[in-house]
């Protein structure tokens, strides 16, 4: 069991001056697991993610990927941001290949992978289009495709559908599940939407109010695709809501 642990977070703590944001967080994630992190607004979810992606340094503690301290130069970490993050001057194909170019993949390998992802996402006919020519949902699909493109060791998603309407959110959630199943990527998905978390995750990490600790780790064994009106689904959603309530 322990050899399939992909991500190992030990005593992760972050202070900004005297302000304690994350307090001694430890957990493990299996290879290929889909984990959602939920918590009250402003509890430090984004700080948590920025630590995992090594954009900022922790005050204490460490993050191991395959037993090695996480380093964007060694590991393939992909990040889907809350705000739009496509490169307007690159074509859809260029956007999808961006990470691979940063990592210096050989051209042939890169092009092969770009075409695979284009096909997987149904974006072939947009390959030479620019993001400005796409609809918002197509653009976001491209961004997700870009994130999955290099078989990342870890894919971090920071409320990627926070700004979207219900229909588009359902559609993109299904897209993420589909890609995750096809690629077997390890995903950490941050959201404040409890239904979204229950819909997607195999494991939900519930954070407390600031300073954030892990309140509970909850496994969800329901098979995908899940039914939001299923009795068990609703029970889970109610349970998580109870745990998060802080008002």
């Amino acid at each position, binding site marked *: 069991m322990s050899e399939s642990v992909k991500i190992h977070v030990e005593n992760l703590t972050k202070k900004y001056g005297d302000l304690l944001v994350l307090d001694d967080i430890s957990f493990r994630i299996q290879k290929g697991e889909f984990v959602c992190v939920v918590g009250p607004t402003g509890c430090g979810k984004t700080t948590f993610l920025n630590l995992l992606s090594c*954009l900022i340094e922790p005050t204490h503690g460490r993050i191991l990927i395959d037993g090695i301290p996480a380093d*964007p130069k060694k590991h393939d970490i992909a990040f889907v941001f809350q705000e739009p993050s496509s*490169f307007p001057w690159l074509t859809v194909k260029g956007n999808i290949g961006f990470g691979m170019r*940063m990592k210096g993949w050989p051209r042939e390998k890169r092009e092969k992978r770009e075409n695979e992802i284009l096909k997987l996402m149904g974006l072939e006919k947009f390959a030479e289009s620019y993001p400005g020519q796409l609809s918002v949902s197509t653009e976001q699909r491209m961004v997700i495709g870009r994130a999955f493109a290099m078989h990342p060791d870890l894919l971090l998603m920071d409320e990627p559908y926070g700004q979207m309407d219900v229909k588009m959110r359902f559609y993109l959630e299904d897209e993420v599940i589909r890609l995750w199943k096809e690629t077997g990527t390890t995903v950490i998905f941050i959201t404040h939407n409890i239904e979204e978390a229950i819909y997607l995750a195999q494991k939900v990490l519930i954070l407390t109010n600031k300073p954030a600790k892990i309140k509970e780790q909850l496994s969800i064994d329901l098979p995908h695709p899940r039914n939001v009106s299923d009795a068990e689904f609703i029970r889970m959603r109610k349970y998580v809501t109870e745990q998060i309530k802080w008002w």
Partner: protein
Amino acid sequence: MKKEKFLHRRRFLLASLLTVILFIAVWAFVVETGLVSTRYLPAPAQVLKTFVQKLSDPKPEGSTLGANILSSLKVASVGFLLAAVLGISLGLFMGWYPPVEKFVKPVFEIIRPIPPVAWIPITIMLFGIGFKAKVFIIFFGGFIPCVINAYTGIQLTSRTLIQVARTYGAGSWKIFWAVGVPSSVQMIFAGVRIALGVSWTTLVAAEMLAADSGLGYMILMGRQFARPDIIVLGMLIIGGIGALLSVVLMRIEQRMEHWRMKR
């Protein structure tokens, strides 16, 4: 759709043409009716005649029109290109690397408000009135807007896009080229357009003070020889070439930023 667009464009062309014709008509009217004496303002036909004549005749100031244009273009292009290359690089580095900014900005802030024309006297003292002197003056005119725009442009780079590149493990230098530079292209071009305008204006000023050929020199000599036709001819040529250069630059920008045009 295509035909409509064509008609639309033709209508604009017609309107532009009309303004030019109107301008020349008013000019001709003012001169022909004797409102302004031809001693001070030549008739359009006279300017045209001088134009044809100047194509082959170096009189009165010493060079044919072609030679004057060539001389001016040579100076302007060397000064302008030097300004663009050095200015854009410096601006980008200043905007990207804080130590460079801290180091360069104080000096730059003092040099920035000095108008290019104010460099002329010291330049003549240092370099005389030759090619180098004129290039130097033009360089300063174009350099400043290139630096400012490249600097501002790269500072406006989206934080999110930089973070995307960082999570892919890219270092600062790689991100500079892959994210910083492309996202400042629009601002850089705005700066280059200003620089081109300033270079061309400064050129004439430089030549009027210190030169032995060129369009600015030609105008100045036109006054000394009391030949208003030469003055006006020189002015029109300067205006025409300036407009032409800015069209060329616009085309280049459209090429480089074609993604912006496709919406």
